[in-house]
């Protein structure tokens, strides 16, 4: 890991087109601005991890699961919760 020291207002370049700027440091909270091209998505790490896990879990369901779901959708009454 590359470790750098930066002051508020200073930036770091990643490749040719990603600019990470330290906007403000207050105690243990650092505000960071990121400029990146459209095809580079920027997420908080915990959001990215959660999304990646959710996608992996959703990927390639078994034929049985797909069949069960389509059957459920084709029978609206059974798919809806009972009225209370």
């Amino acid at each position, binding site marked *: 890991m590359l470790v750098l020291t930066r002051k508020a207002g200073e930036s770091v370049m990643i490749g040719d087109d990603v600019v990470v700027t330290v906007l403000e440091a207050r105690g243990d909270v650092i505000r960071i601005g990121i400029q990146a091209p*459209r095809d580079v998505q920027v997420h908080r790490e915990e959001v990215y991890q959660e999304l990646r896990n959710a996608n992996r879990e959703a990927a390639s369901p078994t034929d049985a699961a*797909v069949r069960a779901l389509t059957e459920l959708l084709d029978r609206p009454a059974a798919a809806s919760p009972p009225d209370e």
Partner: protein
Amino acid sequence: MTDTELDMPIIDMAVPMPGFPAHRQFVLVRLNDEGLLYAFTSIDDPELRFLVAPPEPFFPDYAPEIENEVFAALNTQDPDRLLVMVVITAGVNETTANLLAPIIVDRDSRRAMQVVLTGSNLPVRAVMRRAF
């Protein structure tokens, strides 16, 4: 561009889905007659598919706000031509939908991306129920 075998328009990911960086092209295949369920199937790897659904029948109040950056990434000319699909996890006991990160497809440019609705507090796993 059309895949000759499936005769389905190929959708290009403007940004790959998190966890699937190598999968850039998909087709959308309808799985039930009413159009409630679709398979989002990888061209690069036919073994990879996601179940996706339009949110309206299941989550009538769901109205994701799409930011201008997404329009730009998808080359969107007409926002009314955007298709919103939620990714479904079909489980044994419970089926959930990812409301935090829908897949947005531009029907004209045939480009798509999974958009994270930052700051929305929407769930990644919302239990699916049919709302009608």
